[in-house]
């Protein structure tokens, strides 16, 4: 346990070792009762990998079903028919895929995982401000995931087990006694409540840590951009999650205690749920991408061996994306009949987001401009991210226009758009960060060949999955259909082939991990122990040993004027 006062190592790489009283990894108390930000970060990352594999397998079922017209999987007769009997099960898997990827993969990886690991290291703090709260933040997540999985196997309603109303949980589908009268939706509400509490506690922890525990000289304007990105992200979570918690609590009371918040027959308004949901939901999508922005900034700077271009512009672009992110929510609701004036406002507000996003894209390129670029694995992912995120961003500008959204809303164009920003954007940022910091976290080397192969397979695969979906959307293919007319067959098949390529990429990722941690276990040599990435890596975590001592910065580092970000 993290209590031994002698368990200290200095901030210098060569001081680790005997003083680093790292408890045995085989002692369950080290993990269950952990108050160490690095151990908790590791647990978050492992949790995210497991959830990502589960959510990714679910998307495989969806692509299998959609590979050709007709019902092949969710039809009661297939191999999986015993479990997945009808179209309701398709909807259940689709809903669970979304929720798992958002709440149990991307958020734990970026905020809980990398945030926990590297915010204290980057600001020169010994740990998070509230280590025990950090522990409960993590351990609430497996509870939430268990509730979500349980929700899939208990009665949902007249159509079978599980909740099939999408991750958006729109009322009155989610409150319908016929369609979702069973306990499944109630469990899902509780799951989101618990996951939300976990995130709120984590957010408070990060805010207090970043505001109070920076090393001497580490002013806000000298913080690495990754720390800035986490700071903005956790503010978004802190301000938006309570709204979601309120909205789903109203769902719960509508379902169980006879209230009529969203029931039109009782004087309620279903559109109100959408307003509340998206008041959370839109900031949430920036929650998923902003930490990625921070990671990409660190990586681009490191591997270009050049300081970040336009540091303040980059930091405040993230702040302004966060602020504007709160006033654009109803662009998800153009077709609900909200009226001309509101639609016009939300069109204008939404398009403005393109400006700070453009500043970020061009500043990354300007950071590389004139640099000395090392195309190592993390940099491949980062460059892939910049291109794919640009592609997902420009289709966002198209969708921002209510006039066009009238045709594209709830079609596969939207699916393609948000997967380009999330599945390709956020996930590429996760992998970029993973390959960037993995040697730091483990002290081991990974195979650059397997990492590169993983990148190229994923890059080709996800593009093959999602680029054709733009075409499907333009042709009018609706989202969330278990089956579709023959007119959509061609591109759906291509999309499903793309999934196979992506899945092979994920297997290569697992092979990379196996090779790194089990088969070869190559340690970083002494010369590159602190920083395998050379002089471009200037943030504080690269001044420590790899893996860092169990407790670091017992003597606080002092940040000099010129030595920042």
């Amino acid at each position, binding site marked *: 346990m993290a209590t031994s006062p002698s368990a200290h190592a200095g901030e210098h790489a060569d001081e680790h070792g005997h003083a680093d009283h790292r408890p045995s990894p085989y002692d369950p108390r080290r993990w269950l009762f952990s108050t160490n930000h690095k151990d908790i970060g590791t647990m978050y990352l492992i949790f995210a990998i497991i959830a990502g594999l589960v959510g990714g397998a679910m998307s495989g079922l969806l692509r299998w079903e959609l590979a050709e017209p007709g019902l092949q999987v969710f039809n009661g007769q297939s191999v999986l028919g015993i479990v997945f009997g009808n*179209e*309701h099960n398709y909807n259940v898997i689709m809903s669970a895929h979304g929720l798992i990827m958002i709440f149990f993969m991307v958020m734990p990886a970026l905020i809980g995982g990398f945030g926990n690991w590297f915010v204290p290291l980057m600001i020169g703090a010994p740990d998070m401000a509230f280590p025990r709260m950090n522990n409960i933040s993590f351990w609430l997540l497996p509870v939430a995931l268990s509730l979500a999985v349980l929700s899939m196997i208990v009665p949902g309603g007249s159509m079978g087990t599980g909740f099939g109303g*999408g991750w958006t949980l*729109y009322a*009155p*589908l989610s409150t319908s*006694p016929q*369609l979702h*009268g069973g306990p499944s939706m109630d469990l899902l509400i509780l799951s989101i409540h618990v996951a939300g509490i976990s995130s709120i506690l984590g957010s408070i922890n990060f805010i207090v840590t970043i505001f109070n525990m920076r090393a001497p000289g580490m002013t806000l304007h000298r913080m690495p951009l990754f720390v800035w990105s986490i700071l903005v992200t956790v503010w978004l979570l802190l301000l938006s999650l309570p709204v979601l918690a309120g909205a789903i609590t109203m769902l719960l009371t509508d379902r*169980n205690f006879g209230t009529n918040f969203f029931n*039109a*027959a009782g004087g*309620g*308004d*279903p559109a109100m749920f959408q307003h509340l949901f998206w008041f959370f939901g839109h900031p949430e999508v920036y929650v998923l991408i902003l930490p990625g922005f921070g990671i990409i900034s660190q990586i681009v700077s490191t591997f*270009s*061996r050049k*300081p970040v271009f*336009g540091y303040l512009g980059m930091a405040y672009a993230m702040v302004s994306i966060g602020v504007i992110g709160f006033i654009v929510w109803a662009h998800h609701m153009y*077709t609900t*009949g909200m009226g*001309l004036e509101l*639609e*016009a406002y939300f*069109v204008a507000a939404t*398009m403005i987001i*393109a*400006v700070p996003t453009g*500043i970020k894209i*061009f500043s990354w390129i*300007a950071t*590389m401009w*004139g*640099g*000395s*670029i*090392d195309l190592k694995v993390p940099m491949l992912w980062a460059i892939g991210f910049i*291109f794919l995120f*640009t592609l997902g961003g*420009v*289709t966002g*500008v198209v969708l921002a226009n209510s*006039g*066009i959204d*009238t*045709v594209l*809303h*709830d079609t596969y164009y939207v699916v393609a758009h948000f997967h380009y920003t999330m599945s390709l954007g956020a996930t590429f940022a996760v992998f970029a960060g993973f390959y960037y910091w993995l040697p730091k976290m483990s002290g081991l080397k990974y195979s650059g060949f397997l990492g590169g192969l993983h990148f190229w397979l994923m890059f080709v695969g996800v593009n093959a999955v999602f680029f054709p979906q733009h*075409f499907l959307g*333009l*042709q*009018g293919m*609706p989202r*969330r*259909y278990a*089956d*579709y*007319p*023959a*007119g959509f067959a061609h591109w759906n098949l291509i999309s499903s082939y793309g999934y196979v390529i992506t899945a092979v990429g994920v297997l290569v990722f697992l092979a990379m991990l196996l090779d790194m941690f089990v088969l070869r276990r190559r340690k970083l040599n002494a010369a590159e122990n602190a920083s395998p990435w050379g002089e471009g890596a200037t943030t504080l975590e690269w001044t420590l040993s790899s893996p860092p001592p169990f407790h670091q910065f017992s003597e606080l580092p002092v940040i000099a004027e010129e030595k920042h970000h």
Partner: protein
Amino acid sequence: MKIGRIGSAVAQALILTAIGCGFAVAQTVTGPVDGQIGLQPAATEVAEDIVKFHTLLLWIITPITLFVLALLLYVVLRYNRAANPTPRKFTHNVAVEVVWTVVPVLILVFISLFSFPLLFKQEQIPPAQLTIKATGNAWRWDYSYPDQGVDFASLPLSEKDATSQNRPFRMAVDEPMYVPAGVNVRMLVTSNDVIHAFSVPSFGIKEDAMPGKVNETWFNVPKEGTYYGFCQELCGTYHGFMPIEVRVVSQAEFDRWITSKGGELAAATPAAAPAAPETAPAETPAPAGAPGR
């Protein structure tokens, strides 16, 4: 693009012949065409504007994406470690920062010049000669022609029926919605249970069917033919199986159809739009928490 267009023309011709053989009524059939990469052909003026606006946007976003790609490739080739062993250290350049802030703003202002007029055209409903109400139910559409006194339910054809009638499965319905060509149609959309969405892509319309609320939109289709649409808001298990089929026919044929449905031909079609939409019957399911869970 060119190959795509030729491909689409061929595919469309094939589909037309295929469907034309079995169905003499429909002159044109507009729905998804396999392998196509663009929007469906526009059937209304609004949809034409949407297609034009989308083409304009495509001409803006494609060069931007390619520009970013080109910059990335350039920096990777020009400034990689071999080509440029010593990195420069600059971190600011006010001129380019101003440019990449101001130019996107100008582009967005330019886009809005086209975006807002389109939005106004869609949302400002002109005087209509015909009013149709579509009511979503889990899982079928009910249509009602209040001025003619025609009400009916519309169910999708089974695979067997669709095949035997040579009509597209998952799109064709037993009772299509009929409208006369060249007439402003006011479409009222509501729901009896959960939220659905009434959409016909080639008309450029999509309106959520909300319980307890009547949304409205409009269209005017000059060309006779059959047009297909979908429910586009997740409404439960058979969300995918409540398609929309619209037959646009001549006024005479429309009148015959109204009569065959037992409706009355409206005496004089009023030029002005009828009164404001009434509140929906709000026949939502039994209150939440009802017994029998």
